[in-house]
């Protein structure tokens, strides 16, 4: 049976969490190898997260958190809910449409600095501004963040296919708490990357080289303590559920509630990848990413799992549940086998739930193939994302 440390939480949350614990407990008793999961819910360094569909109610498999943003050094603050927790990127990005604060604009040579930050699902475009960022009891002072979709800057000339409103983003913002301290590069982010721009006018933007300290920063690295990584703790999900709740915990081994314990460390390479082995082949461009909303891996020709058609192209749609076995291997040589299942995405989506344990799709490219272990991989695991430091220069995952 699971144990849960719960202090000073509303009775209704306690009752809900207990239900979750009982459900998970009964399923784990059927498998003697499943370790007991303890979800920490109290502490100055603990923020509640929910997999609940987000602001539009129909986002599949994303964890959302509330973030408080303040004018630096002031009590002029606003709390923004439904911010997506993303261990696959670094830095806070908030939609301009939900921001009400007058933040300070970063400039370069007198011109506003605007960023086109690339995600595979669409770029985020908007100015770099400075804010104090508070999550749970943690505070990051004077952090460069990105304000997405500010109409003062025209994306069309330099930043294609931006996701710049709640209808395209499906969230009010993205809290990037990934492996790296900066969003682009620990040295300068080169102009040739086309990530940072100086925009003397709304639609005249020139790519610039952005120094490390000016780049959008992982706020965790700015915390006074608990600044060496995060843990996502989400319960196991059986098939699909309307919503599940868990915790985002700051720091690893810095408090009584965030010890590494018996978790195995898998270190990343300089690109933020490690190796997943499947069916005798190693895929060294694989990664763990709470900001991906499924298991994305290989393609139908290699997995034998049918791809969906039409609007759901890219998801897997097998006629019956498919079981997959694979092995993760860190750059440090540590290795561990894992299994998961893929169900028909079309059937899953018809349930109109928000948390799906068996959602997946193709990783979509042979140049090269890889495994993207998204949010379902976090269900039932306390998953540590270690920030790059002297011991782990490219960060690590542990579970």
């Amino acid at each position, binding site marked *: 049976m699971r144990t849960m440390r719960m202090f000073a939480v509303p009775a209704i949350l306690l009752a809900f969490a207990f239900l979750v614990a009982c459900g998970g407990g009964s399923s784990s008793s059927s498998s003697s190898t499943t370790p007991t999961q303890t979800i920490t819910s109290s502490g100055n360094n603990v923020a509640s997260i929910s997999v609940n569909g987000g602001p539009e109610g129909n986002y599949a498999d994303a964890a959302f958190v509330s973030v408080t943003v303040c004018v630096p050094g002031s009590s002029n603050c606003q709390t923004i809910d439904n911010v997506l927790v993303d261990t*696959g990127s670094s830095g806070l990005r908030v939609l301009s449409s939900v921001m009400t604060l007058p933040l300070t604009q970063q400039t370069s040579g007198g011109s506003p600095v605007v960023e086109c930050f690339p995600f595979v*699902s669409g770029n985020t475009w908007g100015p770099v501004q400075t804010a104090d960022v508070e999550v749970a009891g943690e505070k990051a002072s004077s952090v460069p963040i990105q304000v997405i979709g500010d109409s003062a800057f025209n994306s069309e000339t330099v930043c*294609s296919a931006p996701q710049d409103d709640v209808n395209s983003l499906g969230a009010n913002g993205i809290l990037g708490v990934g492996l*790296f301290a900066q969003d682009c590069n620990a040295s300068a982010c080169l102009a040739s990357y086309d990530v940072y721009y100086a925009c003397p006018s709304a*639609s005249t933007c*020139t790519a610039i080289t952005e120094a490390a300290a000016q780049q959008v920063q992982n706020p965790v690295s700015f915390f006074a303590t608990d600044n060496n990584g995060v843990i996502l703790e989400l319960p196991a999900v059986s098939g699909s559920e309307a919503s599940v709740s868990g915790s985002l915990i700051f720091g690893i081994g810095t408090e009584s509630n965030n010890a590494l314990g018996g978790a195995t460390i898998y270190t990343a390479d300089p690109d*933020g990848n490690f190796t997943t082995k499947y069916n005798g082949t190693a895929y060294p461009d694989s990664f763990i990413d709470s900001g*991906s909303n499924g298991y*994305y891996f290989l393609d139908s020709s290699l997995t034998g799992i049918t791809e969906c058609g039409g609007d759901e*192209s890219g998801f897997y749609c097998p006629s019956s549940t498919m079981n997959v076995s694979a092995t993760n291997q860190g750059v440090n040589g540590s290795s561990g086998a894992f299994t998961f299942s893929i169900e028909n995405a079309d059937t899953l989506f018809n349930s109109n739930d928000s948390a799906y344990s068996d959602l997946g799709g193709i990783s979509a490219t042979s140049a090269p193939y890889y495994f993207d272990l998204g949010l379902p991989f976090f269900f039932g695991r306390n998953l540590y994302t270690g920030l790059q430091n002297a011991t782990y220069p490219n960060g690590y995952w542990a579970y």
Partner: protein
Amino acid sequence: MSLNVYHQPKMMMLKLSLIGHRARSCESKVLLAAAALAMFLPAFPAWAALGGSAATVQADQIHMQGTLRQTTAATYTVHEIQSGSGILVREYVASVGESAGKVFAVAWQGPWPPDMHQLLGNYFDQYVQAAKAQSAARFGRRPLAIDQPGFVMEMGGHPRSFMGRAYVPGMLPVGVRTEDIR
């Protein structure tokens, strides 16, 4: 302003492809012309690559300030451009069939995506519309998967590690398997 930006590249592309047709027998002149254009318009967003003539590969190399390496297969040539910033682009040029001399596929890998305006050329608008349609169809951050009869594009990875490819199915020369495009 945005109208200008969308119209100008198309005109420029036309000029480049005209040069390409006229000067197939004197490739050095094409290179010089492309280099001259690149000097005048160093940050120009779109030289068509996908669907364009082989001459556009040279323009891409200049735009990316990269080194070029060629490998030849039975029915096509791969032009591999490695940029100083770590982005690798491969452009597949057919050597036989109706699309001979044209770029029928592109693939890329690197810390950041390449300039999609430049790499996708005429197919850029199709990419943007399909990418928007994918996010409108269902919320969720996931790899890009566009599979249309006339245009296939996939992009995956994460910040600091992107990979992807795009091709025009109807332009593939005989004997090319889609998994060869990588």
